[in-house]
């Protein structure tokens, strides 16, 4: 589904990623673990195209997408939920969610909306409220629903649990399981590795802009414990 080879990302003089390679197969849920500044968000941003790679290769669904701009990658089948949620604060909840499926036609939008409302009743209750007025957990639901609205092949979740209370972490986890049931491939980053590992099928440990280890959930859990990530 997604294959990243030898990716390098620089911001000014700082190198955020030094030749990172990862593989994500269809149907997997891959977790990127690592401390703050390890390069997890840079990797997600380079995959969606918000950060440009100075070297390396990104292949998605069998095609090289290095030349494809960010919006083109999203339309090719990537959904993106950014770190810190970043909902559109002045827009209503419904508009936020449907902005993820612009130009897909009214029928597809209505279908997506009613499916999402089935999973997250909160969306329907708050449909007309500006998203900027919601709590952090509710905003995270909106950001997830926005990323899911086009039913992407690959879902990129950057720190979906950041700053959330345990009850919301449980609800977001539940939502991610719904997406897994639809067969969605997921690449997610999380500092809160413990709840995230319950969702993942495989993981990578990142440090200082490099992949240090990779392995099954059990292996990553042990590694992360040893290196004090949990």
């Amino acid at each position: 589904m997604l294959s990243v080879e030898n990716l390098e990302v620089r911001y000014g003089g700082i190198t955020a990623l030094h030749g990172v390679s990862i593989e994500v197969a269809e149907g997997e849920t891959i977790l990127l673990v690592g401390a703050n500044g390890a390069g997890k968000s840079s990797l997600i941003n380079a995959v969606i195209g918000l950060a440009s790679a100075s070297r390396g290769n990104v292949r998605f669904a069998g095609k090289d997408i290095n030349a494809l701009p960010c919006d083109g990658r999203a339309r090719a089948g990537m959904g993106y939920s950014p770190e810190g949620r970043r909902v559109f604060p002045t827009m209503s909840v419904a508009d936020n969610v449907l902005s993820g499926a612009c130009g897909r036609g009214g029928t597809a939008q209505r279908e997506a909306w009613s499916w999402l409302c089935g999973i997250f009743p909160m969306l329907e209750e708050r449909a007309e409220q500006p998203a900027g007025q919601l709590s952090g957990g509710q905003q995270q639901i909106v950001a997830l629903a926005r990323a899911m609205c086009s039913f992407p092949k690959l879902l990129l979740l950057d720190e979906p649990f950041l700053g959330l209370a345990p009850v919301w972490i449980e609800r977001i986890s539940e939502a991610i399981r719904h997406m897994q049931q639809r067969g969605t491939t997921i690449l997610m980053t999380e500092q809160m590795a413990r709840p995230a590992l319950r969702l993942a099928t495989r993981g990578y440990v990142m440090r200082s802009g490099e992949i240090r280890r990779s392995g099954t959930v059990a292996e990553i859990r042990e590694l992360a414990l040893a290196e004090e990530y949990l």
Partner: protein
Amino acid sequence: MQGIVATSLIGISLGAQYALLALGFTLIFGILGVVNFAHGGFYVLGGYIAYSAISFLGMPYALAVITAALGTAALGYLFERFLLDRLIDDHLATLMLTLGLYMMISSGILITFGPQSPAFAFPLTGVLRAYGFYVPIENLVVLAVCVAGIVSIYALIYRTDFGRALRALADDRAVATAQGLRPKVLFPTAFALATGLAGLTGALVTPILSLAPHVGDPVLATSFLIVILGGLGSVGGATVAAFLVGMVEAFSAVYLGGSKGALALFVLVLIMLVVKPSGLFGQRARGA
């Protein structure tokens, strides 16, 4: 009583014109983060396109107005797509570009048509008389078209996918792009919409007010003032402020006389900036 009603009608009709101009101005600022100093230029250009279409091509007035709106929209599209878009995040560069375009438009018109006002009159004249009030028909026509324009813009922005995409880009450009929205298509289209509105207003209003190469200057100043009063980037604020400004202008011109109208307006804005710097409906200063 009659005087108040008549003055209010003038105020409303001024307000509707200003709303069309200010909506375009605030859209460009809200979505692209660009202060369009060429806005008045598109207004004048709209007037001259309509004038030329009637005088040299023999078009009927309605068709000439449509031509002016489309012509200014097309110029706006090309300008954004091929010049402004390259430097969209550089505030100083976009300022120079739009200011430069304004100078090119107004001196181009000056060279082509000369400094004098051409004979450009509204095709419908006459006065409607009802219940003891007199209303010029041309003002009614302009008011009707402007109100239809305002309603259409609202429908476009709040009821369509296109509008939703524009609002998303205005709120958070990076995230909106990562949802698959195309700035390369939407930015020039939004710019064209705004300049087309300025051109439409110019074609409608200049035969009533006046047409000359320099009449864009006060348009820019008024648009600026309305948008600051309403809150930068706020669509609702711009609409309310436009009617407010129209009313203040009409009443102070009639009851205070001449130049005191402009003075009253700037005092109003000054008070606004001191009391509530974000404007009537402004929520936050726009992040660059």
